[in-house]
């Protein structure tokens, strides 16, 4: 287990460093100055104030100096100060992490429960109505535009049926999270349904399943004793990849549902040219991705003995 972690870490560190460098590079060529962080409809900006702020933020230093400072600070966990709100970026992002995690987890719970179940049922009865319907549903889910689907959910469940609140974080309760989680989870759900079906079909054709059948096992036991765990290994890869990238993919849904997550903060910060905040958000999203993938690696070790002893 420690070995896996160590090996993983050796892979992660260069990736994180590369991300830091890339993000800095991208945003040092971004058009639009710091003024954009302050501008608002129709209001003029005092040039003297801007000049002073530039100095204060160290934006007049040459790029290499800024890069060196940036890297030095980032490595120590200091992500700088937001251009826009002037609070530390760590604090700015800190309050967004929990809502973001909640949304991502909820979306994944939806995707896994619905997707894996559908995939399983479809694989156990290939060619049946269940199979056809769930697979047509899955491929349709993959073809949906996220914001469009979200808007439709909003209109149907909030406005027409009045079952759920339409937007926002509310008190952090369950009712507010359902619609955004479904809108966000529909893509991974579709993908998981398809992967699970393929994986289970693969395994149902595997030699060891034939062995199990030759033992005189009922199909239910075959699935329970021999298919589930093996399918899990295949499914978990996709779950990991989806899960990890979901925080970044949540941008659109967070914007639409006014969900206070990291993704929406990032987009707003891009538009406001709040470079330290953008850098912080991307770093956060990447770290989340890497953390999830590390967890998936550990999950493999737990599930698959072949890896443990390798």
């Amino acid at each position: 287990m420690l070995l896996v972690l160590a090996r993983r870490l050796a892979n992660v560190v260069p990736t994180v460093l590369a991300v830091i460098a890339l993000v800095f590079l991208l945003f040092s060529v971004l058009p639009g100055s710091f003024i954009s962080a302050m501008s608002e409809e129709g209001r003029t900006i005092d040039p003297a104030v801007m000049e002073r702020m530039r100095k204060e933020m160290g934006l007049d230093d040459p790029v290499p100096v800024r890069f060196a400072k940036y890297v030095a600070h980032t490595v120590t966990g200091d992500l700088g100060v937001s251009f826009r709100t002037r609070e530390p970026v760590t604090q700015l992002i800190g309050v967004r992490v929990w809502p973001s995690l909640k949304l991502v987890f909820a979306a994944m719970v939806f995707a896994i429960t619905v997707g894996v179940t559908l995939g399983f049922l479809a694989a156990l009865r290939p060619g049946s109505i269940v199979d056809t319907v769930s697979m047509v549903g899955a491929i349709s889910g993959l073809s949906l535009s996220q914001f469009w689907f979200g808007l439709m959910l909003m209109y149907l469940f909030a406005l027409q049926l009045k079952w759920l609140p339409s937007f926002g974080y509310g008190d952090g309760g369950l009712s507010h999270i359902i619609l955004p989680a479904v809108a966000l989870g529909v893509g991974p759900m579709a993908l998981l349904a398809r992967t699970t079906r393929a994986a289970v079909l693969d395994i149902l054709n595997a030699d060891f399943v034939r062995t199990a059948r030759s033992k005189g096992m009922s199909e239910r036991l075959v699935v329970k004793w021999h298919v589930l765990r093996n399918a899990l290994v295949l499914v978990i890869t996709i779950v990991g990849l989806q899960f990890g990238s979901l925080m970044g993919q949540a941008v659109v849904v967070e914007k639409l549902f006014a969900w206070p997550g990291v993704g929406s903060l990032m987009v707003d910060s891009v538009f406001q040219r709040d470079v330290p905040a953008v850098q912080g958000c991307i770093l956060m999203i990447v770290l989340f991705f890497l953390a999830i993938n590390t967890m998936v690696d550990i999950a493999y070790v737990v599930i698959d003995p072949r890896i443990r002893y390798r």
Partner: protein
Amino acid sequence: MTLKGGTSLWIGGILVALALFVAVAAPVIALTDPVMAANLMNAEIPPGLEFPFGTDVQGRDIYSRICYGARISLTVGIVSQTCNSLIGVTLGLTAGYWGGLWDDLVSGLTNLMLAIPSLIFALAIMAILGPGLVSLLIALGLTSWSYSCRLARAQVLSLKSQGYIQAARILGYGDLRIMFTQVLPNILGPLIVIATLGMGGAILAEAALSFLGLGIRPPFPSWGSMLSEARDQINTAPWLSVFPGLTIFLTVLGLNLLGDGLRDILDPQATTRRA
């Protein structure tokens, strides 16, 4: 895979062919100019005889705009996926072939691309270049090549282990020749599948970027920008969004079905590689 291989191939093929036809024949089948035929007196007319899909806030015929929009949306899909395939295959082939430091570098880059969600990457590029078709092509064409890269690299490594490449070298073939004659044909099938599925992704990404305000540069229409512009009127003038929304859905569905169908033919062993 979903339906019988043949069925999804057929339905997908027909949908995609229809979209292609609309794009190519736009000047012929469109009723009006998509930009200049604006007439504010005709604004927001529901679908009817004169305007089959209704008109938008500017009084432009939505049907005609969808026809012309097909050109942009399909261009985005095709060009960006061609870019992705070219980048991915080039990096993957060379990395697998030459190995060593270059391979490490490419693998690192692939990991990086996987770690940063492509939508965010595209968003950053769009912010740097500003909205517009060229920016969009660059943003979507540079950000999702990791699949084809991995595919190409894996194929080279497998051929290497089977001794094909040594054999070709002994015969005096050059590196490039080996890559093109030995490796490329082997991955063409799966590559086409990845690209087909990727096209659907690119069209959806264009819509998402339009929603975020970083899409195509109006007034020339793209489906994503039409959908995005119409979202505020979803209650008052639903046809503004229903038709572009449906068009996007059917086209992407077509591409996904086609990809599935092609995979059954071109890449039969890949049941679980990419669902």
